[in-house]
């Protein structure tokens, strides 16, 4: 095993005393573990990581959903690229997304937070996210409960800079949200991602005292301004203040003793072509996996392509953008090829996590989880009935290994494909794997359902987007511990 880590005295202290050194991110080291290697020497739990991965515009469900359920299912055509991480693969199908509005793409994003979108103006294809996404709830939980939380609470990356030109609002343009007015848009430039994750730790004169003095001054300015504002803008200043606190924490942090990667040369500007998606995805994956390994962050989201984005998969010789293909019943073979191609990119990331081991031999797929999904189920209809999830990783055995859980069998023609249950059940199960004390996720208040519904022949008049229901089939031996 590669042994590039340098064990520092303060790192030992951290493992031994937990709160002994504040605000330090370090890779997990053997010397920091207890004698069984299943907890920190100070008694804290081993870190868990969450990485959310998004591929817009759905799948070909007939070629995506595995034919069998349970632990011994055979990978479907569209899941086949994930064979290298099959032992850690969980697939959930047949659930219903209960966003109260149905106007394509926007409602699909509910699958990442369990809140019906806010301020929805379906006629203008406009909405804001209804509440915090799961990754942010988890990031808050880690920050609030860890004696030595990671240096950066969460990070958001994007691969294809092309976005929808027909849609508006915040919902569709970010995979991570902290609230309706707090969209955390993806950063498409790998150099900026590198700067955020590792820029602090390059050799330079130590001017941290001065930078902290500047932050203190800026904080006073922010509080002064805050006093003159109403509640909406006060929340915005609070987000700014939170950012200042996190910057302060980063400045105070001791450099991780793992080797930081060098700054990539790729800037990933938006252009007419999308030739470099595999390369950009690999660069981003390398940066994020290294940051997880070094415990610089434990929560990340990656938007591969956005919903309704005008991304064309030129690397597989396609000339029409993937979203347009999904709407074209004559281009469904191209859709399938596009889904397989994007699954290969998810695989590229997952394999990097599989191959990154800590001193005990645990991989990032043993300790962490990739939660992957889209903004609809079947690309052709853009339905959110049967919106599937792909989970790769066992989260320290709080989740099971390989399984296909299907809430509702798929029968009939595509327009009849029905679903039951609630996509947010998956979110709740994952949240509870991080935080056993969690009692729900999203908004549990039933909302009046509006717009055209499909997949469910007799939809209820009201439904809640959130959930407090576990999916037992996903849980592992350490769940609830």
């Amino acid at each position: 095993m590669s042994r590039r880590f340098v064990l520092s005295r303060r790192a030992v202290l951290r493992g031994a005393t937990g709160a002994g050194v504040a605000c330090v991110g370090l890779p997990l080291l053997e010397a920091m573990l207890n004698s069984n290697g299943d907890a920190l020497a100070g008694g804290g739990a081993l870190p868990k990581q969450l990485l959310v991965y998004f591929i817009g515009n759905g799948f070909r469900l007939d070629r995506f959903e595995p034919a069998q359920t349970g632990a011994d299912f055979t990978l479907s055509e569209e899941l086949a690229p994930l064979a290298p991480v099959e032992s850690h693969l969980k697939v959930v199908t047949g659930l219903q997304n209960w966003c109260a509005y149905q106007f394509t793409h926007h409602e699909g994003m509910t699958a990442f937070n369990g809140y019906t979108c806010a301020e929805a103006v379906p006629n203008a294809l406009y909405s804001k996210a209804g509440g915090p996404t799961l990754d942010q709830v988890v990031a808050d939980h880690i920050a609030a409960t860890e004696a030595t939380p990671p240096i950066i609470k969460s990070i958001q990356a994007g691969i294809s800079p092309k976005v929808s030109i027909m849609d508006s609002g915040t919902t569709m343009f970010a995979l991570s949200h902290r609230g309706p007015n707090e969209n955390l848009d993806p950063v498409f430039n790998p150099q900026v991602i590198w700067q955020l994750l590792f820029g602090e730790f390059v050799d330079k004169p130590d001017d941290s005292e001065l930078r902290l003095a500047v932050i203190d001054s800026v904080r006073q300015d922010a509080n002064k301004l805050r006093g003159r504002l109403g509640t909406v803008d006060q929340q915005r200043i609070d987000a700014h203040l939170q950012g200042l606190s996190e910057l302060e924490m980063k400045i105070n942090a001791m450099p991780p003793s793992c080797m930081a990667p060098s700054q990539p040369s790729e800037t990933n500007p938006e252009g007419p072509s999308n030739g470099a998606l595999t390369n950009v995805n690999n660069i981003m994956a390398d940066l994020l996996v290294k940051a997880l390994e070094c415990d610089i962050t434990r929560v990340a989201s990656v938007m591969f392509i956005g919903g309704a984005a005008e991304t064309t998969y030129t690397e597989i010789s396609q000339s029409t953008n993937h979203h347009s293909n999904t709407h074209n019943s004559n281009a469904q073979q191209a859709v399938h090829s596009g889904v397989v191609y994007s699954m290969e990119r998810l695989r590229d990331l997952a394999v990097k996590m599989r191959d990154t081991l800590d001193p005990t031999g645990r991989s990032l797929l043993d300790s962490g989880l990739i939660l992957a999904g889209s903004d609809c189920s079947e690309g052709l209809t853009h339905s959110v009935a049967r919106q599937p999830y792909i989970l790769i990783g066992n989260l320290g055995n709080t989740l099971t290994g390989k399984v296909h859980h299907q809430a509702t069998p798929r029968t009939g023609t595509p327009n009849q494909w029905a679903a039951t249950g609630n996509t947010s059940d998956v979110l709740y199960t994952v949240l509870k794997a991080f935080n056993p004390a969690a009692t729900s996720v999203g908004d549990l208040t039933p909302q009046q359902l509006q717009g055209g519904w499909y997949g469910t022949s007799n939809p209820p008049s009201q439904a809640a987007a959130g959930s407090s229901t576990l999916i037992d089939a996903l849980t592992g031996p350490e769940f609830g511990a």
Partner: protein
Amino acid sequence: MAVARQYLVGASAILAAVGLGLGCGDSSSDDDPDGGGGQGGGGIDTFTLEPAAGGIRVLTSSQLRYSLEYILGVDAAAGFEVWSDSQLHGFESIGAAELALGSNDISTLETEVTQAVDAALLDVAHLAAFVPCVQSSPDAACYTTVATELGRIAWRRPMEADEIARLVAIAEQGQTWGGGDFDVGLKYQLMAVFQSPHFIYMPEIGEGEPGMRVLGPYELASRMAFFLQHRTPDVTLLDAAESGGLADDEGIRAQARRLLATPEARRGLDRFFGELYLIRDIPLVSKDATLFPEWTESLALSMQEEMLRSLQDVVWTRDADAREIFTSEDTFVDATLAAFYGVTGGGAGWTKVVIPGGQERFGLMGKAGLMARFAGNDETSPTKRGRFFRERIMCREIPAPPAGVDTTLDPPTGPMTMRQRLEPHRSDESCAGCHALVDPIGLAYEHFDGIGRYRETDEGLEIITADESLGLEFEGPTDLAQIARDSAAACLAQSFWRQSMGHVETDGEADSLALLEESFAEQGYSLQSLMVELTVSPAFKRVGEPK
């Protein structure tokens, strides 16, 4: 939500109260029983204003860059890029009024400000234009001068004593750390100035009666400068604010006209049109290379430039009737576009030409770049073109497609025109309701293919452009140009309103917006005049309670 009080007064009272004085033919005389002199909309015989909520707007990434360019110099600000600016309701300025920054944005801000300040200190000549002491007498007193004078420019208001003291203390701490080097102290002082929320956010809070707060002169100066120049107010404007030069409408107009005469105003308006008409997207559009081998980034850049030059010609060169944007048969070509359009006379640079030969290329909708933007990779898209026309030219909303609908067009069984292929949009009830709003309009532009080239036929078949769409009847682009012209004034006024103030117009602002439209008409639909008159609108100068 903010509590807003409504004022309902007679026109003469409000004109007196807000010092509006229409000046150009008083069309809303009290003597006229119809109020508005019989000019549409029922006129304005009473005037109600309930200003939209006040609060803060975060500066967009480009506003910050241009502001740093003014204060620190072009080289220092080059490449400054901090956050993605989310559009809400079609405008980044509305996103800037509602959305919060994320934690990583704050971190990136520190990185970018540090780089800009470091670059600025390589040569302090630019800074010295504002604070000469950084070059002539870099001593302890100069830190106070910088905090006071440069602080005022960066924060767009006079500095308070405790703020100056704090910034000086940081400078001194930095100087000590830097072994007595003045510039090191200056660096950290400037970092505190440019990371401050007083620089990053534009407060529009005002003072006065609840719900009817009047922007202070510095807040008004900022609102004007970020609207008209897309950057921080210059020293002249701040001096005008300080000396009472913005206390009356004539003073405001004089400053607005001065700002409009600067290159920054032109750059700002290019950005506005780039956003409004998606002109900024054109070089990013990809096309099927086998069908459209002519489509290159350089052709797309020429098309983008063509559109901007056409708009600049109307607004700046000729200060012409803005409705020409939708009706003019003139355009601008370089050699590439001359060949593309089939016109002669395109030389080395850009030439204004009339596109010959009955192509019915009128104004914006006749531009190849727009036609290419609103098309698929491999074919035209009457739906997208029609939607653009309704939404961005007529300012109408289009209902969203119903969920779960298969939007596939049947594959052509033989040669079929796009009109024939779109027939299901009309015959299928679930489609017809919405597509009737947009498809017929888009189909009128079927002579322009997926990259905006003129074509006589579609698949060898005749192209029919005549149609009707919810009360609009037209033979083709010629009639639609007139329809666009008729909607243009109100839609342009509304778009400038949203962009300049960062919110969708409210019911309480309806009279103010109507008044603006009236003055737009009275002044021959001059967009320069529209921008000036917007800055003296009662609604521009006031806000409700802070949100």
